[in-house]
């Protein structure tokens, strides 16, 4: 048994916001590469990029509150060989500029790294205008873009470093609250999910900042019921790790997916689409934000409301095992 991937969740080391790690990583990369450029839409404060702007004033481009322009200009910059990070709240970046992402980045193959900050319901109390619960679905329907939702500081740094050197378009989204390290395991590859906890009765396939509550739920089930449940961080939504999904479907009779996204078109539907078309039929459920007028509150309160929590996830898994 791998003790590393079975460390108790309460003992996991607390990290910083993924947003902060993103900003620090970008500064480290920029120090080595004058060709790296950050583009912001009046978002350098919310993107924690003020220090970046001070240290590398010639490597940051401000476009004002104009997300279509942000992505179009970023694509033009990238077409000349610049390593471009276009940073804006995920809600605006992937909705207002959707056509620029589809045409100017993905279709024209200009390798911009689109960074969706304060993603999901990070701006929970600000309402639907500021939620990005559509971004996985929207971008999954676009050819030629890799979609990543890192769970912790380690995955964030690895994803940013990989994207910086990749000749292909990326969309990476994360929130702004402190995230614990979900694993001590240092294996990371874009397109490869990470098994961060071993188990037997069921597997929870989670992405982004829902991996942590999934781990808490696995702890809870082990402590209260003696049920061991595996947890996977499926940080890359596209391309989906179908090899891992195949293995999981062979091993586990029950699979629950968890995401900070509408239940429509995200991780869950990506996994179920693959499984069903390849002859796998585990007991399966998608846990996410339902297709309704989204409740408001803090990110945590919204998570709790929709059962994306230690108790909520544990109870879903129990129901599936019992049935």
């Amino acid at each position, binding site marked *: 048994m791998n003790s590393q991937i079975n460390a108790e969740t309460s003992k996991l080391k607390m990290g910083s916001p993924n947003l902060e790690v993103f900003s620090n990583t970008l500064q480290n990369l920029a120090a080595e590469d004058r060709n790296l450029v950050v583009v912001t839409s009046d978002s350098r404060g919310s993107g924690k990029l003020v220090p970046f702007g001070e240290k590398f004033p010639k490597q940051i481009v401000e476009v004002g509150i*104009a997300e279509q*322009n942000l992505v179009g200009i970023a694509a033009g910059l990238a077409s000349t*060989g610049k390593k471009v990070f276009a940073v804006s709240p995920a809600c605006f970046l992937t909705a207002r500029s959707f056509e620029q992402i589809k045409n100017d980045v993905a279709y024209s193959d200009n390798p911009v790294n689109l960074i969706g900050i304060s993603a999901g319901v990070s701006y929970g109390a600000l309402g639907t205008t500021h939620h990005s619960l559509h971004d996985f679905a929207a971008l999954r329907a676009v050819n030629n873009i890799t979609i990543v939702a890192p769970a912790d500081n380690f995955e964030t740094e690895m994803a940013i470093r990989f994207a910086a050197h990749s000749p292909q378009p990326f969309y990476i989204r994360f929130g702004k609250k402190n995230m614990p390290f979900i694993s001590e395991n240092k294996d990371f590859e874009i397109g490869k999910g990470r098994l961060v906890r071993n188990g037997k009765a069921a597997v929870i396939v989670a992405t982004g900042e829902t991996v942590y509550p999934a781990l808490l739920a696995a702890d809870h089930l082990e402590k209260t019921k003696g049920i061991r449940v595996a947890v996977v961080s499926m940080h890359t939504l596209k391309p989906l790790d179908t090899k891992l999904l195949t293995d999981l479907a062979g091993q586990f009779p029950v699979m629950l997916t968890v995401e900070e996204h509408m239940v429509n078109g995200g991780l869950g539907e990506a996994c179920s689409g693959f499984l069903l078309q390849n002859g796998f039929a585990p007991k399966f459920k998608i846990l996410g934000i339902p297709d309704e007028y989204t409740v408001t509150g803090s990110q945590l309160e919204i998570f709790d409301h929709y059962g994306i929590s230690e108790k909520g996830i544990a109870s879903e898994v129990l129901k599936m095992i019992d049935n």
Partner: protein
Amino acid sequence: MCVPDLERKSLEYRKKILKYIKHASAGHTGGSLSCIDILNVLYNQILHVSPQNFSDNNRDRYIQSKGHSVEALYVVLADQGFFPESELETLCQYQSHFIGHPTRKVPGVEQNTGALGHGLALSVGTALAGKMDEADFKVFTLLGDGELAEGSNWEALLAASHYNLDNLVVILDYNKLQITGRNKDVMNVEPLLDKFKAFGLAVREMDGNDIASIKATLEDVPFESGKPNLVIAHTTKGKGVSFMEDSVKWHHGVPDDAQYQQAQEELDKKISALEKLESK
């Protein structure tokens, strides 16, 4: 290349635009005939771009924002040697790279365009990279007039001016027509000169169907140090074929056999007239 030689080229390009649109039974006839003189002068006189230097990061860029007038771009790129002209016989056919809007699958095309209101921001980003690298290249983009209703253009002009992009040359193919009718009836864009000036651009007007006027204007870039260049090219949609001129019907009309015959004859007559003038 001298003005009469370029004038003759424009007539030959027009014949080819019609030939391939007729062959494909599809195309944006009016717009391609409207902008062909501008593309002619750009590629034969102004742009430092060729099949030989196309991977050189210091090449000039031409980004066609009004992507639908792609037949004009195709015949010029073929003439520049980017691909054999015979490939245009596959225009709009199953799996052909020569589709109804520019894509990078066609040698010589810089960006995949077609959705209106995208080329300018792409051009601003490209020009900005040139400024950051202190490179010499210029970026040219061609906008349609109907396209000016897309707000993204005005966002991009703000940025062009904010970043003093005098290496950016925006050319407006101002034929005053769009698919539904006259711009002024569909969505008035005037007063354009005042609008562009208010956006901080160095603005010139030219006859966009007159080779000498186009050449003189574009050779004068940058018009003003530190300001993006904007050229209002007054053009005629369907220019060069009497019955297609200034008629919205020819936005994407395809000539029938008799019309095609008449159009080619009109253009042949203009070529003969030019030849006579030259031999004198």
